[in-house]
C-alpha cells in the first residue's frame, strides 16, 4: 500500500475538513492576539500563568494555520513556564509544539516534543494532559505507518480519557482504533470499534462523529463484500452530510458507491455515482478522488464496450494519478488500458500498458510486504505478552497439583492440562476484555483534535475573507470618488459636443467649411475623451468586482503599470475619504517596456493596495509628530530587468525598527492600535507573491527615515 494513500485515506475517512461556519473562531484568534498584546504592556506579565495559558491557546489555534509561528509561541511559552516552574503550561506548550511539527510532517521532532510533554505531565500527575499527549503520539505514529506503536498509545490515551469520562473523546478513540484495524485489513475488528464510536457520537449528537461513523462502517462492509449493509450505512452517512455540508466526506461516500455499483454490474447507477463523485472531487480539488472517479467512469464505459469514451476517461484519470505519483491508481489505470487495447485489437499498446501495470503492481507489492512485516511484528508483540501471562499462571497451578494429587499424576496431568487450557482461555478472555476497554478509551482525543483542526481550517478561510472585505471597505470610498471624475467628463464632453455639432451645422449652412472642419476636429477629440473616461470608470468597477470575488484566481495577461496606477489612486482617495486632514504627495515612474505579464490581477492588486495603504499610513503617522516642513511622500516605481519585474513602493514615513523587520510578515503582527488592523495584510501579501506567483517580497527600511517594499515577479 502506498504510504501517501494511507494518510489520505485516513484523513478522508475521518472527515477532517468540514466547512462549517463559526465566526466565533475568527474573533477568538483576534481577541487572543489583542489580549496577548495588552498583556505584554503590563508589568511582570511573563511571570503570569494566565499569560502563559493565553499564549498556549494561541499557539494551539495557530498550530495548523501557521505551524512556524505556532512553534515559536510554544517555545516562548516553554521558557516562561520553566522560569516560574509552571508545569501544566510547560507540558501544554511541549504538546502544542509536537502537534504543529506533526502538521508540518516533521514526525521525529514531533515525537521528541511529545515525549517531553509526557515526562512533565506524568511527573506531576496531570492526567488529562497525559491522555491528550498519548493521543497525539498515536496520531504521529499513524502518520508514520507504525500501527503497533499507534495502537499502544491510543489505548493508553483511551484509558485516561475514560477515567475523565469525556464522551466526544471516547467516540474519537474508538474511531481511531477502528481506523488502525481497517488499515491493517482487520475489518471485523474495525467494524466493532467504528460502531462503538458511532454509538457514542449519537449519544452526544456529535454530527461529524456520526457522519464519519456511518461512512467508515459503510466502507468496512464494502470491503467485506456485504453491499446491502454497506449501502444502508453510506445512505445514512449521506443524510448527515446534508447537514454538515461536508463535501470531502461526500466525495468519499460517492466514490465508494460508484465502486460498489461497478462491482455489482449496475453500470447505469455506477455511472451516476462516479459522475457525482467527479463533480465533488473537482469542487473540493482532490486530485486523488478526481483520478479515482475519472478511472471509474472509464471503467464503466469499458464494461459497456464504449471503448473510445473509456480510453478518454481512463487516460485523464491516469494523468492525474501520475501527476500526484499515486502508485495504486497508476497501476489500476495501466491495467485497464491494457485490457482496453486488447479489446480494441491493438496488441502493441496492450503489451506496453501490461508492462507498466506489472511495474507499478510490483512496487505496490514491495510496499505491502513492508507493511505486512510491520503487522507481523505487531502480532508477535501481542502474543509475547499473552504468553508471559500464561506461563506465570501455569507455574502456580502445577505446584498445587503436585502436592495434592501426586498419586494420580498420569491421569491428572491430562486433567491439569485441560484445566490450564480452560483457565488460560478464561484469562485470555479477561485480558482481551481489559485490552478492549483500554482500546475503547484511546480515541477521545483524536476527534477533539479533529474538531479543533476543522475549526482552524474554517477560521483560516474566514480570516482571509474578512481581510479581503476590510480592504474592500477601504477601497469603496476611493472608488466613489474615482468614478465621479470620469463620469463628470463623460457628461460634460458629450454635452459640449452636442453644442459643437449645432454650431457645425450653422457653419455648413453658411458655407464656412473651414470652421466646420475645425469644429469636427474638436468633436472627434471629445469623443475620444468620452471613450477614454468611460473605459476608466469601467476599469474601476471591474477592479472592484474582481477584488471582492472569492476565488477567481486565474492568471491572465495584465498591464502591471495600469494596475499599479489604479490602486495607487484608489488607496489615496480611500484614505482621503476616511480622513479629510490626510494628505501626501505621491508619484509614480512606470517602465513602459514591461507590457502585459501573466498574473492574478486581483491578488496582485490586493498586495499593491495593501503596501500603498501601509505607506500612506506610515507617512501620516510621521506627519502627526513632525514639523510643517516634513513632506509626506509615497513613490511607486516599476522596472523590468532580464527576466523579472520589480515593483517598488517607497515612503518617507516612520520606517520599521530593526527588531520588527523579521516579524512584519508573520500573521497577526500589526503595529496599528488595537482593532485597527487585522495583522494579516502583509502575511497574505507575502503568500500571494511567494506561493501564488513564485516571486519575492522584500523590505528595506531605516527607522525614522522610511521604508521600501519590493515585489519581484518572474516573467
Amino acid at each position, binding site marked *: 500500500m502506498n504510504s501517501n494513500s494511507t494518510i489520505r485515506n485516513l484523513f478522508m475517512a475521518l472527515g477532517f475538513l468540514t466547512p462549517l461556519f463559526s465566526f466565533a473562531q475568527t474573533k477568538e484568534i483576534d481577541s487572543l492576539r489583542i489580549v496577548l498584546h495588552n498583556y505584554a504592556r503590563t508589568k511582570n506579565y511573563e511571570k503570569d500563568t494566565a499569560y502563559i495559558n493565553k499564549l498556549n491557546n494561541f499557539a494551539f489555534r495557530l498550530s495548523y494555520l501557521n505551524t512556524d509561528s505556532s512553534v515559536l509561541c510554544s517555545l516562548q511559552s516553554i521558557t516562561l513556564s520553566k522560569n516560574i516552574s509552571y508545569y501544566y503550561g510547560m507540558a501544554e506548550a511541549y504538546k502544542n509544539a509536537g502537534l504543529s511539527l506533526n502538521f508540518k510532517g516533521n514526525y521525529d521532532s514531533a515525537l521528541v516534543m511529545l515525549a517531553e510533554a509526557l515526562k512533565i505531565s506524568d511527573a506531576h500527575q496531570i492526567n488529562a494532559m497525559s491522555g491528550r499527549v498519548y493521543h497525539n503520539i498515536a496520531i504521529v505514529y499513524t502518520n508514520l505507518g507504525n500501527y503497533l506503536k499507534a495502537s499502544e498509545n491510543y489505548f493508553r490515551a483511551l484509558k485516561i480519557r475514560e477515567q475523565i469520562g469525556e464522551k466526544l473523546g471516547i467516540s474519537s478513540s474508538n474511531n481511531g482504533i477502528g481506523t488502525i484495524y481497517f488499515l491493517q485489513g482487520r475489518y471485523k475488528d474495525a467494524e466493532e470499534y467504528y460502531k462503538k464510536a458511532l454509538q457514542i457520537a449519537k449519544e452526544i449528537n456529535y454530527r461529524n462523529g456520526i457522519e464519519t461513523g456511518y461512512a467508515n462502517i459503510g466502507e468496512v462492509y464494502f470491503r467485506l463484500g456485504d453491499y446491502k449493509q454497506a449501502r444502508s450505512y453510506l445512505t445514512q452517512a449521506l443524510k448527515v452530510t446534508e447537514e454538515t455540508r461536508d463535501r470531502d466526506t461526500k466525495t468519499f461516500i460517492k466514490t465508494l458507491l460508484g465502486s460498489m455499483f461497478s462491482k455489482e454490474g449496475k453500470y447505469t447507477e455506477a455511472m451516476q455515482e462516479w459522475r457525482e463523485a467527479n463533480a465533488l472531487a473537482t469542487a473540493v480539488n482532490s486530485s486523488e478522488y478526481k483520478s479515482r472517479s475519472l478511472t471509474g467512469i472509464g471503467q464503466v464505459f469499458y464494461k459497456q464496450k464504449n471503448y473510445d469514451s473509456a480510453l478518454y476517461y481512463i487516460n485523464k484519470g491516469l494523468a492525474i494519478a501520475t501527476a500526484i505519483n499515486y502508485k495504486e491508481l497508476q497501476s489500476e489505470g495501466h491495467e485497464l488500458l491494457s485490457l482496453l487495447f486488447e479489446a480494441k485489437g491493438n496488441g502493441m499498446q496492450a503489451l506496453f500498458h501490461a508492462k507498466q501495470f506489472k511495474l507499478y503492481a510490483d512496487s505496490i507489492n514491495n510496499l505491502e510486504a513492508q507493511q505486512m512485516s510491520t503487522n507481523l511484528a505487531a502480532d508477535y508483540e501481542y502474543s509475547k505478552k499473552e504468553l508471559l501471562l500464561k506461563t506465570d499462571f501455569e507455574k502456580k497451578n502445577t505446584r498445587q497439583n503436585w502436592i495434592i494429587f501426586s498419586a494420580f499424576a498420569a491421569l491428572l496431568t491430562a486433567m491439569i492440562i485441560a484445566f490450564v487450557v480452560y483457565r488460560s482461555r478464561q484469562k485470555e478472555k479477561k485480558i482481551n476484555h481489559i485490552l478492549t476497554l483500554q482500546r475503547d478509551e484511546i480515541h477521545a482525543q483524536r476527534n477533539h483534535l479533529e474538531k479543533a483542526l476543522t475549526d482552524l481550517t474554517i477560521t483560516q478561510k474566514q480570516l482571509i475573507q474578512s481581510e479581503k472585505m476590510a480592504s474592500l471597505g477601504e477601497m469603496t470610498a476611493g472608488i466613489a470618488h474615482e468614478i465621479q471624475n470620469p463620469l463628470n*467628463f463623460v457628461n*460634460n*464632453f458629450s454635452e*459640449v459636443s452636442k453644442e*459643437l455639432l449645432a454650431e457645425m451645422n450653422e457653419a455648413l449652412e453658411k458655407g464656412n467649411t473651414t470652421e466646420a472642419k475645425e469644429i469636427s476636429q*474638436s468633436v472627434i477629440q*471629445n469623443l475620444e*475623451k468620452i471613450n477614454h473616461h468611460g473605459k476608466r470608470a469601467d476599469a474601476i468597477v471591474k477592479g472592484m468586482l474582481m477584488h471582492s470575488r472569492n476565488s477567481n484566481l486565474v492568471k491572465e495577461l495584465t498591464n502591471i503599470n495600469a494596475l499599479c496606477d489604479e490602486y495607487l489612486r484608489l488607496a489615496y482617495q480611500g484614505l482621503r475619504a476616511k480622513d479629510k486632514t490626510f*494628505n501626501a504627495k505621491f508619484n509614480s515612474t512606470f517602465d513602459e517596456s514591461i507590457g502585459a505579464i501573466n498574473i492574478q490581477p486581483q491578488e496582485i492588486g490586493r498586495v499593491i493596495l495593501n503596501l500603498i495603504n501601509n505607506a500612506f499610513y506610515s507617512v501620516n503617522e510621521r506627519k502627526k509628530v513632525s514639523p510643517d516642513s516634513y513632506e509626506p511622500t509615497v513613490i511607486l516605481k516599476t522596472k523590468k530587468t532580464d527576466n523579472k519585474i520589480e515593483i517598488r513602493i517607497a515612503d518617507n514615513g516612520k520606517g520599521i525598527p530593526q527588531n520588527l523587520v523579521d516579524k512584519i510578515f508573520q500573521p497577526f503582527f500589526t503595529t496599528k492600535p488595537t482593532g485597527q488592523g487585522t495583522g494579516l495584510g502583509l502575511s497574505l501579501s507575502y503568500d500571494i507573491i511567494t506561493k501564488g506567483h513564485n516571486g519575492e517580497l522584500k523590505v528595506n527600511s531605516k527607522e525614522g527615515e522610511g521604508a521600501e517594499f519590493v515585489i519581484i515577479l518572474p516573467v
Partner: protein
Amino acid sequence: MKILVVDDEKDVQILFEQRFRKEIKENLIEFVFAFSGEEALVYLNQHEHEAVLILSDINMPGMSGLELLENIKHKFHKPPPIVMMITAYGDSENFKIAKELGADDFLTKPVDFTSLKEKLKTIN
C-alpha cells in the same frame, strides 16, 4: 478677465476651453491652468494681480485645494483674488473648512457651466 483653474485632472483644460470657446474667442475671458496647488502658487507668485478669479478643486495630491486657499488668502493681501472652491457632492466638511478659510464662493461637482457663467457675469 483672467481665470486660474486648478485641478489635477488634465482634461479639465480642454473642457473649459470648449465650454467657454465663445468667451475666449471674443477675448472676454482668458484661462490659465495649473495641475496642482504648488503649480498654482508658482504662477501666482510670478504673475501677481493678474488672475482675478481662482477656481480650485479640493482633492488633489500634494498641496490640497484647502491649503492653496489658505496660502492665497494669507499671502496675497491687496486685494486678494476671488477664490471659488469646487467641492464634491455632499462634502459638507470641506465646505465648512473652505468657508472658514475665506473661500468666496462654491461650485459643486459636477460643475454646472451655465450657473458658472451666470456667476462670472456678476463678477464682471
